[in-house]
């Protein structure tokens, strides 16, 4: 059925306005990152008076951006790998077996997803400080400490999504694998995991993105050497001045890897998210 003209026009107008709204900050980010400092400090201009790549050079020395980058990469990467691997086992157990406490487990996992991060922040902070005092193990301020706090959101999410995904893998497949002489773990890794690769990718992408953008735990649980990008980017604001062009350049640099990864893998992510949500 051909859509009426009025529909096509209202669609054009709406989608154009929405695209403008969505891309406005992207344009500001890009154009401001190429402006000289006097340009971003004065009145806003749509068109830069002169283009310079100076901010992209200076961002690395104004703050130790490379160090923050590495920290973010380690923390987000480790939290992702850890939660996805553990979630694979847990989700397999839940989706393939009946056992006592199964419902309790799934309900607990689901409900912890709705709790605000601030609820876990205060106790974890105290636990870390006290473990440090008692044993000398410095969890507070360490990367490992931060990775553990990231599991508060990435683990329940990963388990929950993978349960949905594994349940969509036909049970006949892993039963057939077991008939062929594989154990349950053999069936998991030879059949279920390969069949659920899109779901696992989706969960990993999502977990990584969330950890990469996390601010709350990072702002409390890090120190000078373990600071992540989320906190480190605030360093471009000095007492006297904010280097807005550098802030924008750095924002763009830290965004490119995740946005590129996301757009490449969005097909999986969308399928994964919606398989979980629509069910």
């Amino acid at each position, binding site marked *: 059925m051909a859509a009426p003209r009025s529909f096509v026009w209202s669609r054009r107008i709406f989608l154009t306005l929405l695209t403008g709204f969505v891309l406005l*900050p992207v344009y500001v980010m890009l154009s401001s990152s190429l402006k000289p400092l006097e340009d971003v400090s004065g*009145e*806003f201009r749509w068109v830069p008076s002169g283009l310079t790549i100076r901010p992209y050079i200076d961002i690395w020395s104004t703050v130790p951006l490379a160090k923050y980058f590495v920290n973010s990469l380690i923390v987000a990467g480790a939290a992702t790998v850890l939660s996805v691997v553990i979630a694979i086992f847990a989700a397999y157990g839940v989706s393939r077996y009946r056992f006592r406490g199964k419902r309790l487990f799934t309900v607990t996992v689901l409900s912890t997803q709705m709790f605000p*991060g601030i609820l876990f922040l205060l106790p974890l902070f105290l636990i870390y400080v006290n473990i440090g005092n008692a044993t000398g193990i410095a969890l507070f301020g360490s990367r490992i400490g931060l990775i553990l706090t990231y*599991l508060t959101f990435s683990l329940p999410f990963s388990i929950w999504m993978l349960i949905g995904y594994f349940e969509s893998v036909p049970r006949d497949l892993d039963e057939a694998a077991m008939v062929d002489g594989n154990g349950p773990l053999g069936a998991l890794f030879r059949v279920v995991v390969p069949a659920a690769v899109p779901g696992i990718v989706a969960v990993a992408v999502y977990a990584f993105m969330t950890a990469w*953008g996390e601010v709350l735990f990072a702002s409390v649980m890090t120190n000078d050497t373990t600071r992540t990008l989320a906190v480190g*980017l605030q360093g471009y604001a000095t007492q006297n001045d904010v280097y*807005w062009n550098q802030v924008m350049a750095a924002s763009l640099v830290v965004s490119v890897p*995740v946005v590129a990864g996301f757009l490449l893998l969005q097909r999986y992510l969308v399928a994964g998210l*919606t398989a979980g949500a629509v069910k």
Partner: protein
Amino acid sequence: MTVTAQPAVGKEAPPGAPAPAPRRRPGRVRRIALPYLLLLPALLLELLVHLVPMVIGIVMSFKELTQFYIRDWGAAPWAGFDNYSLSVDFDAPIGKALLHSFFVTCAFTVLSVGLCWLLGTTAAVYMQENFRGRGFLRAVFLVPYALPVYAAVITWAFMFQRDNGLVNHVLHDQLGLTDSPSFWLIGDNSFVALLVVSVWKGWPFAFLIVMAGLQNIPKELYEAAAIDGAGMIQQLRRITMPSLRPVNQVLVLVLFLWTFNDFNTPYVLFGKAAPEAADLISIHIYQSSFVTWNFGTGSAMSVLLLLFLLVVTGVYLILTSRGRRGADA
């Protein structure tokens, strides 16, 4: 389900299994233990990052946990329900501020979720059929969702600057809508600024989910309706919206929880102390805890927040499941 582990029994029997026992026995033990073994790492970590902190959080809320006791919180004196009565004493400054923050959060959440849903649904419905550039637009619309929160929100903070921001440049310099450049990150306008950023960041999720929901509606329904002479509006009302109901129920709940608990957006936009008009509850608790170093009251507020979320979610789930049963009947 019943046949699952049977064929593997003979092969998998542990070497130490007693010989006279029936051959299936080791398999049975394995089968019962296996799910727990699979769950063990997850259980341990859940215990570590969720259950223990929650128990400690509840204990903390009954203690007088000021900065003097942070290093050795066991030594902090018991406060009984003092932290709670302090938090809900709405005539005193602390309770009053908490109540204010609660109302701000509720208003903010309702508006943000409503607008996110509206934008996401409209865009998804408009993009239900294929047209030129649809794939490209879809990728563009996902950009706010993919950008790291702090990078996106810092950019918005720049745009909302009074003297060198885009917003005032457009509203004041170019359109002349305001007499003088406004402050956006302090004062009453900060609520609007926070809402704009939150909607910008949140609507693509609604768009994604609704789009997936639309794909599950059989095309035949629309074809049949078109033959019966139903127009686009009628099709939207009679087919699209009812079919989306289960999707919307999940979507609204998730958006509600995310928005209500959001910390990242206000923190990056305003810093440690949000302006009064945009003082969201998670920032408020953070400030009560880490700026004034009173963990006891902070924990009591967290527990109250949790109770509120549990009640709202429970009521919502009961209401929506009843609605669904009614629709099925």
